[in-house]
């Protein structure tokens, strides 16, 4: 079974530790601009959301790539960019509906989340557990449970 990065924004504190560890593991520097994951924070409402690549099964970045440089990793299911065949036409950055694929001008490379080859560092370092790496079906199940609990609340109120 393929695992997914499961994001629970209600747990995110907006500390941006994930951004730091992500850029450190991939490029060796603490630079949020080079991070594959980025936290969007709304100060007024106090809401933070770690925006990360969804590894779509029918991925816009993969469809739009003229040379097929973006392929699915058989082991992790992550969409990976082959730097050697990539033309740097940056079509994938325009195509991604989540803005999770972008261009790093200094390294001249397209960067996107590669799930750290099946061992995501952001998950290990997230202090509040807002990002977790789980089997796709259990990720769904916990959401279903939460919905069921809400239903239960509503029904009990009605009794």
């Amino acid at each position, binding site marked *: 079974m393929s695992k997914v990065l499961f994001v629970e*924004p*209600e747990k995110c504190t907006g500390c941006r530790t994930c951004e730091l560890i992500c850029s450190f593991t991939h490029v060796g520097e603490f630079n949020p601009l080079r991070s594959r994951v*980025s936290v*969007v924070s*709304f100060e007024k*409402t106090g*809401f933070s*959301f770690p*925006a990360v690549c969804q590894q779509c099964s029918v991925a*816009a970045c993969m*469809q*739009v790539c*003229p*040379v097929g*440089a973006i392929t699915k990793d058989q082991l992790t299911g992550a969409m990976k960019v*082959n730097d*050697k*065949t*990539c*033309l*740097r*036409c*940056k*079509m994938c*950055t*325009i*195509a*991604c*509906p*989540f*803005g*999770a*694929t*972008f261009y790093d001008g200094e390294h001249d490379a397209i960067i996107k989340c590669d799930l750290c080859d099946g061992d995501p560092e952001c998950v290990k370092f997230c202090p509040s557990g807002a990002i977790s790496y789980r089997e796709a079906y259990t990720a769904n199940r916990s959401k279903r449970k939460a919905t069921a609990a809400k239903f239960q609340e509503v029904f009990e109120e009605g009794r």
Partner: protein
Amino acid sequence: MFITINNRQIEVQTGETILQVCRRENIFIPTFCYHEAFGGQGACRMCMVEVKENGRNKNRLVAACTYPVTATIEVFTESDRVQQVRRTLVMLLKRRAAQDPYIEELAHKYEAPLLPKLKVDPQGCILCRLCILACEKMGKSAIWTVLRGIDKRIATPYDEETDECMGCKACAEICPTQAITFLEDGEKRSIWNKTFTLVSCERCGKPYATREQLEYMREQTGYETAQICEPCRKKTLASQVEKYQN
């Protein structure tokens, strides 16, 4: 199958090019026109190597990027003959693209002499054709080589603006000598004698892509997206999630 490269036995698969084998084994071969997305073209001739084939008395000079290995051969990548060919090539290329650091590095390595008397317009383009291939891969083919001989250059048909060009700059990005110039000035982008008006992000107002690029994307992916730039898409996603949560 085994072949010998610089007196070293290396296992190869039939059909692999010499360049592919050397790249895999970290044997240095300079190239300009080679890109993994397209394979070898044999245009720049920088990858020339000396090959000793069975049943031939004389060694042959071949372009490593277009020579598929089909029999047991001996390859020399830094012999005197190879060095001489590369020296000549670098010497000539340096007249066309003197500002390029990689050519400068190779000129130093192969001790290429200067050619002050040769009259060449140092426009930077070394006719490696990578831009043509990139444009072709994008499905556009807006540019091609025009004229022949010493006048040969890369251009759009009749140097006029063409409907094919979508202003993606893939040609400029892939150019090994940065010879393709474009102008990006706020809401306008000019390349290949064509000026594009950039589409602005609906959220932050920053211009981010040409209309033709967005059209191309729609054709490829088959779905409509809001005209929002890449950093703003994260914000939009986040605010949608926030709305759903509350």
